[in-house]
């Protein structure tokens, strides 16, 4: 199953180191492959170096693609993480 979703980076700090760490930890918990696309850049959401290289600042529009049996659950959880500003308040 392949799920594609639009995600907006709304937190002030963007995908900084701590946020990236949370994202990577969460993604690693799923069996699906999870890719994040920012313009022409595509990275594996299970690799923190990749996520950092994505250079996603506040306001960036990302495309999330999950592929696997838990793809839907993964997409929902990850989208929620972004929308909750990585539980960091802003």
């Amino acid at each position, binding site marked *: 199953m392949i799920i594609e979703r639009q995600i907006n980076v709304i937190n*002030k700090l963007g995908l*900084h*180191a*701590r946020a990236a*760490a949370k994202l990577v930890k969460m993604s690693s918990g799923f069996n699906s492959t999870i890719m994040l696309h920012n313009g022409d850049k595509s990275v594996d959401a299970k*690799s923190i*170096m990749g996520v*950092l290289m994505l*250079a996603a600042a506040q306001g960036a529009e990302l495309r999330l693609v999950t592929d696997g049996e838990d793809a839907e659950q993964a997409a929902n959880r990850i989208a929620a993480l972004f929308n909750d500003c990585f539980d960091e308040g802003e």
Partner: protein
Amino acid sequence: MFALHGNGVGAGIAIGTARIIHRPGEEIPRYNVEPQQIDTETARLARAISAASKKLKIIKTRIADDGAGEVKAILEAHLLMLQDPMLSQEPGSIIRQQGINAEAALQQYADNLEKVFNAIDDPYLSSKSADVAQVIHRIQGELLDEHGDLNSQPEGRFDGEIIVANDLTPADTVELKKHRISAFITNLGGPISHTAILARSMKIPAIVGLHGSIRYLRTGDLLVIDGKRGVVLVNPDAAVLETYKKRREKIVRSTQAMDFLHGAAARTLDGVLISLNSNIELPEEIAESVNHNAAGVGLYRTEFLYMNRSQLPDEEEQYRIYRRVLQQTARPVTIRTVDLGADKQVDGGRAHGKMITNPALGLRAIRLCLHDLSLFKPHLRAIYRASVHGKTRLMIPMISNIDELDQLFSLLEEVQQELTAQGYNYDPDLPVGGMIEVPAAAIAADLFAEKLDFLSIGTNDLIQYTLAIDRIDDEVNYLYEPLHPSILRLIKITLEAGQAANIPVSMCGEMAGDMQYTRVLLGMGLRDFSMDPAALLQVKRQVRLTDISKIKAKVNQLLAAADQKIVQQLVNEINS
């Protein structure tokens, strides 16, 4: 196999593995890796990453859960980076594609990343390059740590190894004494630097002034150090290694064979007793002089006290050090007043703040001292006060002018009067001598001999000034020739002036400690030698094998010879 050349500052041969010492702030080393070593290099990188990760995990467990959540989260992110295969992929392929070392590949990767982050138009996000930089810094630290850091190493960790460093600071040299290293080599440093002094005091060979060529060396390379020739052989072939092992054994054996000479008298075959003295630099070296049964200290260089420090040593400090030296021997100690300036520009000496085009001809030694009484007077007072603790002689370097002597004597008068008034004891008959190391002083030695209690020929400077060649300059030092007719004549003039004035003349330059000149000098009438303690036994053996009456005629021929080839031939005959 290949060879590197520098200045050998300690005699002897050492064989051992290289240990490269790297210091924070120094440039990241970059070198090519042989194709068959590429896998080893990528494995090094992987090892460094996992070591950095392990250390970070330990740090994380030490942080308490309460209140440090933020720090813990950052460490968590750093740990994820270290565990991310992507982190080793990129530098790994740089190693493979460019055939370079892990440190350089990692640095290149870090530079690339920084460019990416700098391109991000968001202040919050571009600052996350700091996190990546910190992680890479940790890995770099692990890679460099394989080379070794001198500080806080357990005692003996570097035993038997050859230390390779850009330079060694005085602090390093203290750390080094905890290890029985077999040699060290440095990019910087000259024959009179503190590194050279360290080599002498540790009795190990060393090569300094390699001018950057240590970058061709790796930790673990097998090195042969030939301290006498100033050569480093890197990963020598079996045959070469064997030759050097034999040579090293021979040196050790001949050192042992000479042990019996310790107690023997320095008397020639025709019964002339010769005074063999030692040159010392560090106060501790007096022990070595005593162990070698030297007749005394013919030259105690006081410069060391002024080196590697920002403040001048005061009178009390100097007094205590001179006293400690004098109390350890019943034999005479000739203290030379400080010879700063020229090649010995030191922190404790006075900075002039201007470029000196020709320091060897400038304000140095006695000139500098008379120029700066705040430096000279405490120095003289300390020597006078110490003079009651042993047989002391005062020696003035680089005299070239009678006026300077007159100035000196009135200053000595003043110092003595002040000491008397202040109730200090000193030797009122302290002998005052001068070093003959400027051609002017040798040519007019009779004038100086009239005013002084003894003379001492400093051949190093005398040769440099007479032949107008800088011994440290690689391009002209082949002209450095102690047997040049002019040098022999100046020595002869000085010896004769001493005889006429009935004062002793000694020689304390390197020529005095080189056994190939011993017989020539004996034939010329020299009876008093002063040298590096390490040379004493060899020269003593040569003295004991010499019949002065039998070589006199040949030495006279030598003094008249014009051709350097004939000079060499006569020297060979005299020495055979």
